[in-house]
């Protein structure tokens, strides 16, 4: 049996990110004043300290900035290998997501690959994973 993914503890700051997938939204905190993005999410804009912020749906596509193929099972029964990637999001400069690249063999993943988000739901948390765009 596959172990459950560790569950983020929901709070005021992270709620929109971890639950947005229910509506297919990859929510990133966006500033209504300076237009820049803040991730990890905060109750203010980290660029201009404005409190006029709200989660905004990212396009959900991006590029693999770097990645590792992980072989160590960090939990009992965790299936290895799997890819841990840092994805640079389209349209959201300076924001990266650590995620998994799924739906392909680990050896098919490469730097610069175009990817798009898909959500894996577990107990109300919608984990943003990514898959390669053909």
């Amino acid at each position, binding site marked *: 049996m596959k172990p459950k*993914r*560790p*569950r*983020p*503890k929901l*709070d005021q700051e*992270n709620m929109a990110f971890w639950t947005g997938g229910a509506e297919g939204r990859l929510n990133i905190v966006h500033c209504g004043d300076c237009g820049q993005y803040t*991730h*990890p999410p905060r109750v203010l804009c980290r660029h201009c300290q404005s409190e006029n912020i709200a989660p905004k749906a990212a396009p959900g596509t991006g590029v693999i*900035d*770097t*990645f*590792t*193929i*992980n*072989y*160590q099972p*960090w*939990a009992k029964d*965790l299936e290895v*290998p*799997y890819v*841990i990637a*840092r994805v640079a999001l389209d349209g959201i400069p*300076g*924001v*990266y*997501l*650590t*995620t*998994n690249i799924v739906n392909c063999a680990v050896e098919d993943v490469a*730097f610069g690959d175009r990817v798009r988000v898909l959500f894996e739901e577990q107990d109300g*948390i919608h*984990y943003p*994973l990514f898959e390669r765009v053909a």
Partner: protein
Amino acid sequence: MSREAYITGVGQSEVGVRLPRHPLLLTVDAAREAIAEAGLTFDQIDGVFSFPGKVSGYLAFSPVGTDDVIEALGIRSKWQMGGMEQPAQLSAIGMAAWAVKQGICRHVLCFRTVYEAGGMADPAQYMPARSDTVSGASQWTSPFWATSAACWTAQYAARHVHKYGMTREQLGQIAINGSKNAMLNPRARAITKEELTLDKYMSARMISTPLCLYDCDRFSDASTVVIVSAGDALDEVTCEPIRIAAMSGSVDRYSWDQVEWPAAYDAGRDLWAHTDYTVDDVDTAQFYDGFAFLPITWLEGLGFCEKGEGGRFIEGGTRIARDGELPLNTAGGQLGAGRLHGFGFAHEAVTQLRGNAGERQIPGSPKVAVATSGGGPLAAALLLARD
């Protein structure tokens, strides 16, 4: 009043894996050795500094706090500090240097005690309680089974492979060099039993590409103590003082995945802003190697080579060997001598500068050493000089 700070004593307990000795007693062992080396007594100590302080929820990681040491050794402390929110492990020594430079303290005992191997044998007492949720910084990595700092460091290392052509043969020189030096370090006996060969390294199992088993340090049980003294208190010590010639730290953001480059690049550059010494003056480098890629970031960050050239700099291992142009991690580093969590690098730098390293002593009467700590978004460095 002298505005300089000196390291006047270093000490270390036995280093082992699942040592039966209580971590407070390991700390006392290291403290006694450091005090004796400095020629001081505990009643002359008036400050106690540590990283990260006692971590009650995870005692294996940090089982002893400054309060414990003050109490156990009968220290009358004027100032103490222990906390995780510092640039990195060696910043505790940097804070002690500030305390003596300001005249707040005369002799400060700095320590780092780890019980990460022994603690796993007694999880009820030493390991964190099981939690159903993750929060804080780990919520951005753990849900994707990027559980360990090995995974996070691997992301940076993989980029070096991709962007700069770093090879596993090059990276492997960190662990191989560490094992060679550890074989000459009596305190590394429990950690390194034989020299690591390139063949063995290349066939090791992968943890997180490009990091293999030998690129990751090993949990150990130990305590390391460093005594920092004020420049105008040196008449009270009997040892050769080692001056803290410069220090630097950097935390841009506490995040392993939002920062473009590890903090070692900023802290490395900044170290030279505080001294007339240059990178050419350094006789030995003691670089944090919790993962083998981290010394590469320090080599590049401090300017021993250009960004991206670290792999080629250590190729073949001759340059970083004890008789090379930049002897690196001469006690074995954490890969060879156990996860002492940063303080081992200051201990070894001082030991080498004093010519006390025995069989592993580097030639040429070294005068200047760099010791570093941290990884990813954390970095702190010390430049140490024998005047």
